[in-house]
């Protein structure tokens, strides 16, 4: 039986298990959108600021919920034993990949939608973005953010859960789990420093070239004096964080493999 068939079945399984979460999460954006709609200030700058804050909160909460979604290995516990894990013969790697892919897809959909809401808020503030900037806002930024922060967070959560859940089956998994939680802040800051040092060596991605023109035509000049209108996103952090995610996934897969065989 091909790995692809197995992977597809596992993806189906993940969808069946967690579709309610996915729908609820993306549906919750309707609530945030409504909230944003309710915000009404005379000053478009202030209004945009508050709306941006709302989106920030939505992003954070969404991120948390996504991590909870991926960490739902606990729901498969019975008497401390991961029975359903143990029933399935496909490799632990496939299983890890399927779970990560499904939640990752939900994450991408979520953050792209937030990008869309941001575009709306900006348009409401009188800034008509050109097509290029709009696409960058709604696609490039979310994908960059997801790759930089969300995917690593998901991989980390998955790894933690697999560590902890292997406790009952093969030895004290909570020890490495605790070590992991304690070590993460240190590792995190060390990695951030490292990333900062190597960033901007490769050509960075320039965003919002068209924004300067848009700002100049709106009633914004006063607010954003000296604003260059161009952001540059460095490549390195993205690739590094994706690589770290891959490593965490591989380790999680290995542990799951040990459990499942």
């Amino acid at each position, binding site marked *: *039986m091909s790995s692809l068939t197995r992977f597809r079945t*596992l993806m*189906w399984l993940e969808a069946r298990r967690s579709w309610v979460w996915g729908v609820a999460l993306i549906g919750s954006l309707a609530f945030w959108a409504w909230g944003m709609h309710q915000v009404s200030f005379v000053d478009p700058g202030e209004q945009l600021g508050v709306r941006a804050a709302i989106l920030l909160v939505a992003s954070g909460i969404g991120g948390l919920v996504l991590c909870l979604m991926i960490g739902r290995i606990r729901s*498969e516990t019975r008497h401390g*034993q991961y029975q359903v894990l143990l*029933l399935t013969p496909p490799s632990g790697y496939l299983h890890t990949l399927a779970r990560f892919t499904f939640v990752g897809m939900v994450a991408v959909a979520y953050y792209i939608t937030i990008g869309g809401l941001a575009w709306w808020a900006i348009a409401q503030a009188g800034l008509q973005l050109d097509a290029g900037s709009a696409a960058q806002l709604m696609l490039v930024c979310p994908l960059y953010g997801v790759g930089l922060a969300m995917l690593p967070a998901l991989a980390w959560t998955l790894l933690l859960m697999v560590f902890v859940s292997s406790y009952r089956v093969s030895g004290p998994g909570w020890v490495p789990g605790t070590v992991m939680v304690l070590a993460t802040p240190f590792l995190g800051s060390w990695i951030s420093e490292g990333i900062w040092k190597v960033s901007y060596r490769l050509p960075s991605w320039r965003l919002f070239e068209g924004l300067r023109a848009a700002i100049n035509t709106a009633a914004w000049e006063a607010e954003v004096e000296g604003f260059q209108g161009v952001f540059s996103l460095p490549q390195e952090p993205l690739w590094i964080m994706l690589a770290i995610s891959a490593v965490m996934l591989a380790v999680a897969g290995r542990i799951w493999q040990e459990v499942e065989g």
Partner: protein
Amino acid sequence: MLANLTNVTKRYVRTEGIRDLTLQFPAGEVVGVLGLNGSGKSTMLKILAGLLMPSEGVAAVFDGPPRRNRARVVYLGETDALWTWMTPADAEKFMAGLYEDFDVARFRELLGSLEVPLRKTKAMSKGERGRLRLAMALARSARLYLLDEPLAGIDLLSREKILTSIVKEWHTDETILLSTHEVAEAEALFDRVIFLHKGRLALDARAEQLRSEGRSVVDAFREVLS
């Protein structure tokens, strides 16, 4: 020899699961694994299923480590572990997509003969879930089946259906290891019976041999316990 255990001991933190167990399982037998709670039946089956590693000794299935050959063995554990949202149709999709040796036609036949309702498992009784799990297990073609307490906590009618299905599905080159408390009900099914008592092998005999000595398997079981 489909499977064997050589001087296998399994120790837990505070207890010993099985002690110095040596057994061979050739093809073509229906073996009853009998004993009280905690006598080591589950441990033995889990070791053969590759879910536990022996503390000492060697376990082999199809001449290799049980872990490696897990896909070729059907293990039906005693815990009732199915996702609550699963229907028999979901179970079919799940099994067909992950197990090469799963026979969909046979599964549907078994669902029929075991009278499994087409509902989510959370809307099923324990007996109905037990029958669904058995259908999932027996619809796979393997040479070694390890059934750990498939009758436990299941209503009488379901138990009868389960036993009948096991008889019907068994082929002469397959070996079934079935552990149960319901000795009386299942005894006619066994070619061979193994009694475990406090982790050790107390008796290994052919059922008909016992009967020709005037003892039923239940009688022999009682003797072992006293």
